[in-house]
């Protein structure tokens, strides 16, 4: 037995205004061993074409503080590149945890993809 891997699927969607949004859909576990999946995938995005990024946690089965630290690193990198990051699909428990640690100052949390997309406008 060990940790489940982290899967990240990248998709491009459009918000109502037609502006492109890059969605990183996480699945599985997000832990200390997820750095290549989380930061590696993010690092492959072009800052020019991925100005708006959505993080989808709806298929994440397990998230711990080391995984949250990777999300903080992603948010830090995005802030350096002028990208806006919004988040959806967190369970109510992890919405509470994100709020407790103060991440919500740097990424807004939305209940679903539609409201998260609308949140960019």
């Amino acid at each position: 037995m060990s940790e489940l891997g982290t899967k990240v699927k990248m998709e491009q969607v459009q918000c109502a205004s037609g502006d492109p949004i890059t969605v990183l859909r996480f699945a599985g576990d997000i832990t200390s061993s997820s750095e290549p999946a989380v930061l590696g995938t993010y690092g492959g995005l072009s800052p020019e074409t991925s100005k708006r990024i959505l993080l989808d946690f709806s298929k994440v089965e397990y998230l711990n503080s080391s995984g949250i630290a990777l999300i903080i690193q992603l948010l830090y990198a995005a802030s350096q590149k002028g990208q806006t990051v919004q988040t959806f699909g967190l369970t109510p428990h992890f919405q509470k945890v994100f709020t407790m640690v103060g991440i919500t100052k740097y990424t807004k949390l939305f209940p679903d993809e539609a409201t998260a997309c609308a949140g960019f406008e």
Partner: protein
Amino acid sequence: MDGKNVNSIELRLPSRLGFEKIAMSTASSVAKLMGFAPERIEDLKTAIAEACINAMEHGNKLDESLIVVVILSMDETSLEVKVLDMGTGPPGVVHAPNMDKKMHGEEPSRGMGMFLIQALVDEAEWVSSPPSGSYARLVIRLNKTEE
């Protein structure tokens, strides 16, 4: 479950990341049997996972030959969890993460485990007793009164 007797369950986990999930699922089952609300069970699962990860990483330095012991003790009103390792205990006091500092690279992005544990359970303490090891003690209560 006989509420008049104190009951306990002991788990012995190798210091291998991922095995904290066994403690999480056991604690979740016990808390469900005791009648904890689902949101309190989620709090407990995160707190116990973080305590186990700290014990594996910092206490036992991920030496898989060293065991992390998790003891769940139930009584009528609360569930106590002790997570024991062979280390000397965490240094210093628990402090809330400073997200501004983390976002500016002035504070490590990690290091939130103890804060989360303290925030999610009703009681948390860390006891160092070298050379025998140290432990984290967490308590979550049924019928927690609103503050």
